């Protein structure tokens, strides 16, 4: 996966959901749905496809999870350092983008 390109909305939301700590699959989906207020369709099929690509890119990795957790929930996931870098890069890109808007932060400071 290439860090110089903008992240897909679904990928961004998955990374964001893992920024606070490790979660299991359905919790990530739910968090992504809430963050995007439903704007990013997060169905099981597409979610796991994105997740598998993020894992293959080395941005997300499996985590051990709490010891006494319900085994039916499946694997827990966490951000790798590279994943955190990607999220940071995306944030920087978005901030730059926001600043470029007329009436954006920089424009506001000038006024």
């Amino acid at each position, binding site marked *: *996966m290439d860090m110089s390109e903008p992240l897909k909305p679904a990928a961004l939301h998955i990374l964001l959901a893992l920024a606070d700590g490790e979660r*299991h699959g359905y919790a990530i989906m739910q968090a992504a749905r809430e963050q995007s207020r439903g704007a990013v369709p997060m169905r099981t099929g597409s979610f*796991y*496809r994105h997740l598998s690509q993020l894992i293959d890119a080395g941005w997300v990795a499996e985590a051990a999870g709490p010891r006494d957790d319900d085994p039916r929930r499946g694997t827990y996931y966490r951000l790798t350092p590279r994943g955190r870098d990607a999220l940071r890069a995306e944030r920087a890109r978005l901030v730059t983008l926001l600043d470029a808007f007329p009436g954006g932060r920089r424009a506001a400071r000038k006024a």
Partner: protein
Amino acid sequence: MGPIAPDRWTGVLLRCYPPAFRARFETGMRDALAHDYAAAQARGTLALAGFCILSFADAVRFGLAERRPRRSGGFSMSSLFAVDVRDALRSLRATPVVTLIAIASLALGIGANTALFSILNSLVIKTLPVRDPARLVVLDDGSWTNPIWEQIRDRRQQIVEDAFAWSATRMNLSPRGETDYVEGAWASGGMFKVLGVQAAVGRVFTEADDVRGGGPDGPVAVVSHGFWQRRLGGGADVVGRKLTVDGIPVTVIGVMPREFFGLDVGRTADIVVPIGALANDPVQARMLTGRSTWWLEVMARLRPEQTIGDANAALERMRPAIREATLPENWPAEGLKQYMTTPLTFRAASTGESGLRASYLTPLKIVLGVVAAVLVIASANLANLLLARAVSRRHEMAVRLALGASRFRLAKQLLAESAIVAGAGAVLGLVVARWAGALLVRQLATPGRGVTLDLSLDWRVMAFTIGVAAAAALLFGTAPAFGVSRISPQHALKDRSRTVTGERAFGLRNVLVAVQVALSLALVVGAALFVRTLTALTSAPLGFDAGPLLVVNVDAGSRITGRDSRLTAFENLRQAVAAVPGVASASLSVLTPIGSARWNTEIEPTPFTSGLTRRQRAPWVNIVSPGWFGTYGMRLLEGRDFDARDARGGERVVVVNLAFAHRFFPDGRALGEIVRTSLAGPPPALAYRIVGIVNDSVYTSPRAGFAPIVYAPLSQLEDPSGDIVITARAASGEPDALSRDVSPTVARAEPRVTFTIRALSSSVRASVRQERLVAMLGGFFGALALALAAIGLYGVASHSVNQRRAEIGLRMALGANPAGVVHLVLSRLGMLLAVGVMAGLALSWWAVRLVDTLVFGMQPRDPFTFVAAAAVLMGAGLLAGWIPARRASRIDPVRVLREA
């Protein structure tokens, strides 16, 4: 229960993904799907259906994408197929109404087909849930006496690997008072060993338990898993429970496994008792010794390398000895000779036996044919729909061709659309099938006898559904795909093609519509025949008033014995019932009209009847008390009813019906004549004087109609059985209200008997339930086919009007009047309709041969039905065409010409 268990459904979805992907994510995906499934379920059926379709589409799309090697940098959807699926989903979403109609009609068609198939599957195709069912055979044909079974049992090692006998029947669990029937079976001790069925709880019975009077544990019983759960609490304490089966006390020793339903497909044997237990009841003990009591079926297991032929040869060698040892008493020499020489043969029995199969196989096959035709019609509609869309997308396709897309790519996308529609239709079809199958099975049940068929989705049903969906997708998907190959890229360079030439007269769309019309006509003809058959049967005269009659079937069994004490007890019961307020009259008979039991007797030939066959000389018999004809509302045409004069030892008398009088006596002058027959006892034949003639009535079923019947007085019966029928006539005409008062009266008047109460009209209704089912399904699918065909015609007419707007506008500008335009559109449609109707009439003419046996009260090729069906179809078709035709007549020529 929900439409489909989420677990199973999830399992199917996950199959779409490659194993490596599943190994990694299966648990998590199951968890997520289960959560979202529950959430969708909470929002209602529609939301659930939407969720199921979307998830299914996702699984196909991503599952297939995962199966492709990913390109480097592969976060973009790289595989061409995935692109096809994505584009297809997008274009289906762009026309939601069309897509929903397509999916819904497919779901209905596929669902109906799957439901019918799953019933046929469990009734006919599935093998018994026992060890190695392929090696099971039954002794052909019908039932055998216990003495014959004992002979076979003692020689079985020389014939086959092993064998057992059984008899499926209703069993009464109530020791006295109102009966409590469950389905059960008497079986010989080897049954479970031969079948290889183990107990789920406790133990099954063995040969040691099947001895006269009971083995070491006394008379025992094994109960079904369902009965254990439903009636016995489902606990381990079931072993040792006491039950009374047909008056015989038995001890429960075990529970059968859940999947084992017995040997009679469609009826779960809830209790199985060794036949030796019958010896504990003096009356039923005769079942074990009777040489003319045919009640057992014999099943055997072949040796591993043995063929049916080998077993038959071995059995035939034993036949003389078996037959010799079991000769029935009191048979005429002719009958005995036949008894000795009739061969004994086995036939394959891997799918078990089924009375349900015998009576419903033909109707179910016909209905399967009907729903298959409906699916073809629905698919043709979809093909037309997609073709119409393909035509309107011609410009898009042409542009893409001009930009270098290959025709194959375009065709592939269209095929992907059909595949998705068919897939979604199949998934929803399975839901429809679950529901429709359960509904149908309920319709097969009779009052008092439930039907249990295992309709779970096995691989055969899944393969059938997938096959049907694939066939439908091919049918409606290839037509538009081929259409792509006819588009030329030049279309893109021209403006939207506006031609003044008409479309081809015999284009694919027109052929499809003609086929739809033809098939619908055949279905409408079938529906009309079935509905008219039902009407004819329900309005056929019975010869008696069933409406106000309440029937009490009384069983005194072995608890009241001896001729006189039985007749006295019966008369006491009759008087008690007659005294119940609201009962106009009550009388006794041995049999009930339209009951399951029959009785006939052969009348000795006279010069007048010498030309008749033996069967024609055998009228039906009933034994009745004085006043019975009055209770049934029958008319005495000549002579008298039975009365106190007809005592035992006096002259033997009978009353006959008109059909009897006309069959056996010239001009029906039967009154005062003598007939000779062995009516109620062993030969020789005795003389009976005819003292009365009554009107004709139905004996077995409305379909069989009137037949000769001879009635004899109960008072002259030498050896009455323990069974008697009390019929009460309700003064109000409403028998159901009476049963509340009659039941305690009977129980009080004679505590030793068991009895069952029902309204006679319920039996009359039950006697036409097969016809009712076929008429209901035929009518429903006939109407559906008609509606689909009308939609198809509308689509074609409407499309052709759109295509010819310019032409029609031009014509109108040149002076054509609106009526002329309507005529222009309708005349083309009329041609199509006429071709379809002609083909449909020919098809129906041929197809009625298949439903010949189901039609009653008219010729299957009933001209009125054919003409009426053709008229209905023409009418519906022209109506469907009239709407677009009117629209065409309102085209504003100025606007059309300005668009040019």
